[in-house]
């Protein structure tokens, strides 16, 4: 049997080599693995139609549209839905709300009798401004950034919606 010092050195060299391999492959491997944390997708702007017509409405309008959505290496044409709510206080006479309930993610619908957005899943209610009124939701409906271009209202779809 060789002396214990030499044996200890050899054992140490095994762990040094092993650690070297782990670091050499582990660092690029971790970056590879964590790419979704480091890369964020951009937002998409969608055309919702003529802003004057939308602003003239008396109640929120559900605007359905199709948009090109790309994630990673795939892209597809997807249907989308946003609520355009007449709002005299807003810059363009409207604000735009996401239909996704902030409780569990069902799509809310405008209930004309109540004058509120109603969620079919757990009876959550939001007012026309998107603020939660009753039921389980605590957070308001997401508002999209808007701009007007050549008389058309454009709204921004965030990364999660796109």
């Amino acid at each position, binding site marked *: 049997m060789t002396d214990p010092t030499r044996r200890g050195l*050899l*054992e140490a060299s095994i762990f040094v080599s092993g650690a070297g*391999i782990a670091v050499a492959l582990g660092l690029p*491997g971790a*970056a590879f693995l964590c790419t979704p944390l*480091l890369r964020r997708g951009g937002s998409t702007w969608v055309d919702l139609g003529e802003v004057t017509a939308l602003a003239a409405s008396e109640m929120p309008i559900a605007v359905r549209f199709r948009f090109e959505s790309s994630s990673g*290496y*795939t892209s597809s044409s997807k249907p989308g839905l946003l609520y355009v709510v007449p709002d005299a206080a807003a810059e363009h006479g409207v604000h735009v709300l996401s239909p996704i309930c902030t409780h569990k993610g069902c799509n809310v619908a405008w209930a004309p009798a109540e004058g509120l957005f109603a969620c079919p899943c757990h009876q959550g209610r939001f007012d026309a401004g998107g603020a939660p009124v009753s039921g389980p939701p605590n957070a308001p409906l997401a508002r999209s950034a808007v701009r007007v271009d050549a008389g058309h209202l454009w709204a921004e779809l965030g990364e999660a919606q796109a």
Partner: protein
Amino acid sequence: VTGTGGATQREREAGLLKLLRGLLAYPLPKGVGWSQAFGGLLLASFAVQVVTGALLALYYSPSASDAWESVAYIEREVRAGSLIRGVHHFGSSSFVILLVCHVVRTFLWGAYKGKRRWTWVVGCALFACVLGFGFTGYLLPWDLKAYFGTRVGVGIAGSAPVVGSYLERLMAGGASVGELTLPRFYAAHAVILPLVTVGLVALHLLLLRVHGVTPHWKHGYAGSGRLFYPHQTAKDTALALLLVLVLLGLSSAFGAPLGERADPQNTSYVPRPEWYFLGAQQLLRLFQGSFESVGSFFLPALGAGAFVLLPWLDRNRERDPARRRVALSLGGAVLVSIIGLTVWGHFALDAEERALAERIAASAPITPGTPVTTGAPDDPEAAPDEAALAERGARLYRDLACDACHGADARLDGVPSLAFEGSVARREWLRAYLAHPTPIRYDWTGGPLLVRMPDFALKGDEPDELGALVAHLATRTDARFAFAALEQPATDAEIETGRRLFDDYDCRDCHVLGGEGDPLGPDLDRVGARLLPGYAMALLLDPEGVVPGTAMTDFALTEDEARAIARYLETLK
């Protein structure tokens, strides 16, 4: 008993170290050292392939429509993607090299003899697994090289006697290598083979542990005073670190190749397998015709059989190489033949690629974009033998199976219908395009489309295949594209209106013109030399009606607007 002073070293060891030492600290015979490191290196290589392979699987998509894009995504977008993929790529080659070294070392030491024969047989199964990994992994990037290499490989399996056709269908998952092949190869590469390999490796190592490391023929079982752990393990891990660093270096210096996306119609590509299959391919070339199965099946099967049965075939109990002249000479001859065939195969393929390039260059004297004056002019009544030419073209159209992609039943994404091509494209352009197809359409990333017009290497004269095909296509006209208003010569004002409308409708949002715009739709550079104005006008008026399913926007243009834009496009020559 007080304190721990009385405890032995062994009792104080922590669990993991104890396990390591208990399992691996067995004595090494004299003369065992660096040359025994190949086995440990193979184990480390396998671990590297498992780790990098698992990482690649996070982004890879094993479907024909996405595979190439997902690999391109790994290469271009994923952090360290090209590095990790490169390590996996070079790791497969180094694996084969190390494996050959391991086999040669085992052979030289006679380590397959006697009680170790089953270790050898399990090792042979592992060898087959490694080749299986190489073969199945080769297809996964779904580029030209992958596709055609695999088509040849599956074809070879298909030439096996009796069971060939069944084997081919089983491997391809259908009649030929295609969409259904990719998931099979992926499952084999990433699930089945790794599981089998892990099991076989465990068995291989267990047998090694049972029988011990083969001692040197000179020293026999005389102890060296050294232990597998830590003495041999230290050598193995140091070399493994070196290997990982070399793989990282190769990967960052060269990267893994990713060629053009697989295109079943491509005729200008010489299939090239992974380098370690070049020898097998060359063997195949040596036996052609009715002797094909000698090279593709009998010789390899015989070789593999003899390889596996070596412990039983070689009855000589001696392990000293000096007393194994016959075995060593035969083994050396086999090794030299394999290396020779591999090198020969490499140069033979190079020569074949050059020959094909020359054939294509010779048969396509027309460069794209050069107006062709030797072809028939636009006037359909110009040449007296036009009808005969068109008839030959119709036969050619059928023989080349153009309808496989362009036919009404086989419309692929991005492949235009040719039903009314005579009303669509100018003859000069068609001729130049058929002689040398250059992409005019791209996918949404601006990259090449999944399907691409192949270069059929058509002849320009004697016989004039290009002229015949163009003449045939010219007969395919449609009255929908005849507009009386287009018979009048264009006015400058009309062209100017068209140019303005082109800008107003933001056509560059989807079309590239003069290097500007997004390549979502076809390239409009020199579109005037390509499209006839009647077609352009009809398409502008009713995109969906002319090209069902088109992404072209219907701008609800008036006839005057559409005509003006068509007139403007006509000037873009």
